[in-house]
């Protein structure tokens, strides 16, 4: 898990891992966050590309949107520091041509007033469902397909390994493995 000797260090490590992960498929990508005091039990948001779909120019027509919220906690006895940052909500979306949703991963358990399903789930884009589908051809994109908690690392790996998005770094798999281990350690607590 992204951890550090101070809350600020844990936050910076979390953000750095997020950006480094996305840069495996989107060179030069940037993320926005607030500049504020970093404290235990506080939540922070990170939004890729100011929450605009980010074009994956190595794969024409493909775009990625991603935001996460994370919280800082004490990590007593942690080997890399007494503070950690862990994911509490996320949203990832693959699009075609900037507006046609292919897939979207939602996990917003703290969006109490949104009326959204709070468990982690997946939406299959309407464009991916055949009009000849035997059931729900017009409404399947609204169904909440249950999923486990999904890391940004596994989304980027999916893009590379399954969607054919070329990796931009030779060490992309190592970067994603490292981040995934951190995510798994964190989310199991």
């Amino acid at each position, binding site marked *: 898990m992204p951890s550090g000797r101070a809350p600020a260090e844990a936050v910076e490590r979390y953000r750095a891992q997020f950006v480094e992960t996305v840069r495996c498929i989107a*060179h030069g990508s940037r993320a926005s966050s*607030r500049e504020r005091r970093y404290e235990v039990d506080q939540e922070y948001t990170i939004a890729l590309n*100011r929450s605009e779909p980010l074009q994956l120019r190595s794969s024409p027509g493909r775009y990625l949107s991603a935001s996460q919220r994370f919280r800082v906690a004490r990590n007593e006895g942690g080997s890399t520091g007494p503070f950690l940052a862990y994911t509490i909500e996320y949203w990832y*979306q693959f699009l075609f041509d900037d507006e046609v949703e292919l897939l*979207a991963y939602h996990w917003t358990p703290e*969006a109490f007033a*949104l009326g959204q399903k709070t468990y982690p789930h997946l939406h299959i884009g309407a464009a991916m469902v055949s009009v000849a589908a035997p059931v729900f051809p017009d409404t399947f994109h609204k169904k909440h397909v249950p999923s486990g908690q999904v890391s940004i690392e596994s989304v980027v790996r999916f893009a590379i390994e399954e969607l054919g998005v070329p990796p931009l770094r030779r060490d992309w798999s190592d970067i994603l493995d490292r981040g995934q281990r951190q995510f798994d350690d964190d989310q199991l607590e």
Partner: protein
Amino acid sequence: MADQLVAQPDTDQRDLDDRQGSSEDLESGMSYLTKEEAEDLFDRQARKYLGMSGVEFRRQYHAGAFDDPCRSDFIRVYFLMRLADE
């Protein structure tokens, strides 16, 4: 960098070019927004994707008034509201 396979810029610049005032760290890839900048971003994206102001989104959110909250554009704006509210 030695480990780069492709060296062409890959960032969508459409909304990155109007980031005046924000603190930008190009190497880390982070753009640090003030509260006012975060509120402005939230308002702009709410208008663009949902056709309502940030104020109206916040009001409807707290009233539980959205008909189709699972639309990704609601989720997109929700995260920006959280960013602005920090």
